């Protein structure tokens, strides 16, 4: 039977201790991974595929106890894993794969790659899903695709085509599709899954793979908050002509819905529309995945992947969305339309 594998990022993941302590609050699944799991469940049910939720956990006691083939350690008692298993099963997993690594879990290929490759080699999946906004996706998704020779889909959503016997497929905005009858494997970062509790059996099988961890040639020296702009995958930028309090309030709603950072020029900070540390100086080059620019602002957005402008009348290469003036009308309608989407 075909395997659909969902890589599960954890929002909180303390080190494992083989102590028997099994508090319910030890692990917390990243919400984007929960969306991916929901989509995996929908596809798995439609395609008749087994849905695996795969998670990598750190166990410092593992050193010297592993090889790259992934020793299956079914009986190893792991603190907190039982609660995690229940959560993943409720979210739709048929089976849970726990890869135990001696490397601390960081969103880097050099720390996750060996363990994750072990999972892929073990399961040989037909479809691998990542939450598009999960921290490890940028490092793991494309590499997973390259490893199994798969097609890649970016920010794909699950869609049904037809009536009662609807065909369920994944589709990204470039039009790339993955369907049940396709040959070959696919790897997708996904959005829009609707997590809900499934009433299927919670007696899911847990497979524990002990795998070696970090690449010794790579050393993570420090982690610290990133600078404004660089820190965000999404920004909402306020121009100096968009500082009316009503516009600012709507822009904040938009930023909140997108999980974006609200940025602007020095004047925006001076009038209190943005935080002082969210000032982007004129000419600064930014490269977030998404930028929504409201009004006119002199920053260099050429590195933005998806650029939307509101309240200006311009054209240009690579402009994916444009709402003409006046600012308030276009912005109000946009935020309302976004908030009303299911």
């Amino acid at each position: 039977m075909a395997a659909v594998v969902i890589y599960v990022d954890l929002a909180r993941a303390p080190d494992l201790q083989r102590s028997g302590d099994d508090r319910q609050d030890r692990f917390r699944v990243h919400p984007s991974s929960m969306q991916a799991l929901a989509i995996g469940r929908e596809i798995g049910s439609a395609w008749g595929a087994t849905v695996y939720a795969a998670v990598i956990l750190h166990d410092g006691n593992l050193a010297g106890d592993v090889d790259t083939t992934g020793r299956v350690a079914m009986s190893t008692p792991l603190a907190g894993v039982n609660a995690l298993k229940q959560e993943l099963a409720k979210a739709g997993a048929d089976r849970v794969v726990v890869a135990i690594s001696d490397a601390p879990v960081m969103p880097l290929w050099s720390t996750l790659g060996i363990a994750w490759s072990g999972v892929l080699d073990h399961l040989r999946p037909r479809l691998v899903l990542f939450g598009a906004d999960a921290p490890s996706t940028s490092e793991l998704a494309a590499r997973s695709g390259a490893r199994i020779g798969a097609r890649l889909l970016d920010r794909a959503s699950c869609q049904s085509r037809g009536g009662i016997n609807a065909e369920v497929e994944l589709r990204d905005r470039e039009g790339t599709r993955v369907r049940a009858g396709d040959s070959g494997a696919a790897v997708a970062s996904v959005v829009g899954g609707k997590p809900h509790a499934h009433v299927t059996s919670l007696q899911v099988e847990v497979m524990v793979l002990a795998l070696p961890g970090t690449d010794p040639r790579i050393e993570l020296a420090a982690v610290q908050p990133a600078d404004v702009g660089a820190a965000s995958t999404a920004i909402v930028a306020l121009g100096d002509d968009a500082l009316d309090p009503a516009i600012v309030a709507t822009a904040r709603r938009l930023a909140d819905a997108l999980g974006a950072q609200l940025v602007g020029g020095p004047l925006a900070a001076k009038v209190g529309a943005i935080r002082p540390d969210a000032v982007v100086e004129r000419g600064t080059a930014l490269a977030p995945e998404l930028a929504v620019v409201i009004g006119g602002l002199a920053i260099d957005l050429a590195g933005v992947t998806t650029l939307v402008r509101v309240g200006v009348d311009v054209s240009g290469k690579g402009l994916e969305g444009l709402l003409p003036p006046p600012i308030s009308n276009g912005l109000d309608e946009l935020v309302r339309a976004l908030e009303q989407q299911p």
Partner: protein
Amino acid sequence: MTVIVWLGSAPPVRTIRWLDGTLAVAATFPRGHRGGVIAIAAGDPTWLDLASDRARRAGLDFAGVDTELQLDYLGWAQIVAAVARLHHATTVVVDEASRADRIAEVAAIAELLELTQLTSVVALAHDGTVVDASRIAGGKAHAIRIRGGAVFGLRIAGPAIEDYPTPMPSASMKRLDLVDLGLDPNVLAHRALPARNPVATRRSTERVADLLALYRRPRDDA
């Protein structure tokens, strides 16, 4: 040590600023009798002329792979990996910001060369044997030290450029052929992508909202 700089298979979407930034960083790698820095690009002749011109201005050697193929991330990565093997290069630097599809090529090149990868690198320095990189992930800056080869996806901007001279066809450009790289164009064509029309700018509230919905933050209680 030879360093390969992959500039991609098509010109930047909006600006050559990120291309110049990548070339400027690559130009700081040591060059000498044991290796050098070679910028490479693939695609149509107009793009190769532009890439060659920017590489020359950065003081780097350039090699172009003239091909009409439109490949997916693994197809282009096979070409880069073949050039890297030809030059025994274990460090590859990729301009990741100029086009959205380039980030997947970073991972594919690394997989084919069996190297580690670092995406979203915003600063990079080296002393000949050790590379210090800073990358952005989830609002955090990771300071990372690398000993040995790796594939780096760079998001480092060069100076702002309002206008630049139209590149002229370069007689000095080294041209690489797929067959010379040990690649069969017919086999490589299996990784070809179907031609797609460019997406027009969305100009209605509903269509822009549909686009932004792809980026909506998943709720914590979801």
